[in-house]
């Protein structure tokens, strides 16, 4: 297992380089000064731009520029935000906890609901309960998340007044106090519920279908014939097999959640990475925009790695390949 993990970690390095190359060239294609954030995009004086370009080394060969950019990036220098005039890494770091909190909370909701629904539906397929669960999941998949978000705000924030509809924390609360954390949880609940409940469909469907399929496999029949308890069959034999596809999903889920966050955070004016990303696009704050792109790509890669490692644990056959 350790050897496998190490091999996979080493395998990441070329990917990281590749992705940095793609991001670099994308940034290169943008108008203005996407890297350092030193050239003011609103200053159109050609002489000024030329001076800055020379000063920042944009007239050097492209390889040299890439090398320099990578070197800076590895050292944690992501350039400077043109809007906030702070290092991009600081601007982003400030928002990360919010997004991580939202992502984890909504993931927990997704898992809890999907697991309950998937297990139930898989054990009792084609019953009323299964059909209701299926209907719900189909609907959740079919209703665009931003419509759900807006409607949720109207119903739960405006009409019922249960949840706040914007921000990540109440105004004026002292950091570290109990009220502060409570307020943060309160603020994250609605977006997390929307994000989480909309994401159950794929889990539930896979879990259900796999449980059904596995329950007809020979080993289950054998187990049944041997008189193994039904609950043991489901919990041990079937679940173990059904979890494999779910686990591959975990990795992808990081990306899905982040993409979802772009929309959800925008609707709920929740100050996380997604909202920051759209904000930086709108304001052409390239250093922040490209750093987030890079960061999210890394996260996705990391997610995939985790998925693969988990896959290896669940199904040792795969690892040996």
């Amino acid at each position, binding site marked *: 297992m350790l050897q496998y993990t190490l091999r996979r970690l080493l395998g990441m390095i070329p990917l990281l380089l590749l992705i940095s190359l793609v991001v670099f060239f994308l940034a290169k294609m943008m108008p203005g000064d996407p890297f350092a954030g030193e050239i003011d995009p609103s200053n159109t004086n*050609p002489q000024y731009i030329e001076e800055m370009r020379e000063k920042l080394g944009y007239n050097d060969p492209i390889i040299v520029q890439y090398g320099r950019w990578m070197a800076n990036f590895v050292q944690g220098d992501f350039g400077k935000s043109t809007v906030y005039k702070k290092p991009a890494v600081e601007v982003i770091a400030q928002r990360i906890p919010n997004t991580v909190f939202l992502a984890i909370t909504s993931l927990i909701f997704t898992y809890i609901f999907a697991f309950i629904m998937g297990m139930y539906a898989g054990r009792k397929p084609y019953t009323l309960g299964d059909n209701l669960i299926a209907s719900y999941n189909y609907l959740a998949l079919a209703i665009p998340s931003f419509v759900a978000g807006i409607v949720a705000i109207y119903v739960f924030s405006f009409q019922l007044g249960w949840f706040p509809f914007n921000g990540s924390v109440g105004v004026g609360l002292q950091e570290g106090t109990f009220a502060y954390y409570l307020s943060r949880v309160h603020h994250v609940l609605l977006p997390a519920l929307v994000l989480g409940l909309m994401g159950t469909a794929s889990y539930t469907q896979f879990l259900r279908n796999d449980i059904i399929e596995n329950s007809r496999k020979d080993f289950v029949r054998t187990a049944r014939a041997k008189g193994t308890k039904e609950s043991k069959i489901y919990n041990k034999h079937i679940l173990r097999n059904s979890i494999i596809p779910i686990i591959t999903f975990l990795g992808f889920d990081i990306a899905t959640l982040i993409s979802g966050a772009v929309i959800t955070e925008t609707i709920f004016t929740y100050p996380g990475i997604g909202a920051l990303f759209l904000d930086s696009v709108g304001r052409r704050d390239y250093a922040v925009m490209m750093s987030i792109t890079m960061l999210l790509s890394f996260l996705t890669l990391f997610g995939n790695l985790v998925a693969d490692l988990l896959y290896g644990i669940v199904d040792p056959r795969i690892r040996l390949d």
Partner: protein
Amino acid sequence: MKKTKTLWSLLLMLVMALFLAACNSDSGTTDKDAQKDKETPAATTDVKEGGVVTFGTDQAPEGVYDPAFSKSIVDAYIQNFTMDGVYDVNDELEYVPNLAKWDISEDKLTYTFNFEKGVKWHNGEELTGEDWVFALETLAHPDYDGPRFNYVEGVKGAQEKKAGKADKISGIEVVDPYTIKITFKEVKINNLESIWQYPMPKKHYEGIAVKDLSESKQVRENPVGLGAFKVKKVVDGEYSELERFDDYWKGKPALDGVIVKVIDPSLAAGAFQNGEIDIMDIRPQSVKELSALSNVRIEETNGVSYSYIGLRFGHRDKATLKNVADFDKFNSKELRQALLYALNRPAMIDAFLEGKAEVANTVIPVTFWTAADAKDLNAYEFNVDKAKELLKTAGYVDKDGDGFVEDPKGQPFKISFGHYAGPAAFEGRSQAIIQSWNDIGVKTELATGSLVEFNLYNEMKDNDDAALEAFFGSWSMGSDPDPSGLWANDAEWNYGRYVDAENDKLLKEALSEKAFDKDYRKKMYVNWQKYFNEQLPALPLWENLSLYGINNRLQGVHINAVGFQTDVYKWHIVE
């Protein structure tokens, strides 16, 4: 070249264009103000001491607390709570003393400013004239990286300092800590209007090199201001908490504090409804919903912003900084007039701005004392026949029978019209203009085939992109009535690159020494507007009304030309 108000304009335009909300307004609360009745009894009810109100903004502040370095409108909102200026603009858009009074010398070149005594900065230091001089010197410093150099440009010796040829601005003389003499380069009626008005806390900024100032903690994290409220806590991207400044020089503010909070504009109505926000500059689209709420009043006033369609006459030579008229598509005056006659502006206002705008036939909003009387201007009422007739007289007729006119030489004629992307209404608005012109037989197509992303659109305008033959634009004028920065022959923001001798002559005349006579100045501006109205170097569309939603519990809000944040220390809560 004068850019004073236009810089503000540019800044404001960014917001304007996106949100269709103007930023300044007139005291003449409009006749339609049905909320007035509600307001009067409210004023007699119990005034509550203290309390905190929430001020909604549709974008996050960038967190620059010194106006010399900020560019964002949201930062400007916060500065209006935390800063005070040398002068103020009153309801009639006249410049009146605030932190200082001034006398003008015989030759009209030197202004002597006498500062108020006992004005305190938020850190307890006393304000002196030197703080203001420090600000002016900073703006003229070669290392200064903010966008406001033009606010000291007119002072004698500022340009020399900027070029690194002098250590100090020669036109500034500190007579004593409270008396400052400023000598300008030339006699101009709006020298005062174009000088930087915000002092900088000299002690607080001590030891920071000018080049590092804009990124310093003193500007961005622990600012020191002069205004009724001071910054207490900032949660990036969410809200800024301001608290009362007890030693405010005009008197102790009534409120305990103000929260400036980011709200998605589409949720404004709901936020007002459940009391999440108390005051916000709102979009026309929200008016209907807000007026249904009993706890909120809407105040609307004429603003200082207007929308227009620019027409291309040439390009800007960036080396000589001159506009060159070398594009002749719109040289026919009749064609330009026909294009305006073709537009049903009242219908467009109703359709896209919920009726919250007024048809304009000049580019000086009626709020200004320099605005021409509607009687003196051609109203260009929607008239398709008239438009067609004008086209015919100018020789634009359909020769090949395709339903569209050819130019007088018989060549196919087509206009490429550009518009930026934004809320859903923009798509309809651009289409309405295109179809109106097609209806009178002038073939019009949407430039680039789709609405252009806003930043790119501005770049295209700056670079005289050939696709933008006609283009939608909006300006906010600030408080100086002089339109030269937008329409003078060599003005950078004269995006149509209209160059005309008469135009220049009239505008220069209105800034000349003779214009110190107010009546004469007004006459010149009226003459210019009549000329503009006849020539139509751009097609004026409408003036946007400024709209504000205010919770009834918040009183003492005075809406005027500068906006809705005058005398914020008087804001108070009633139960």
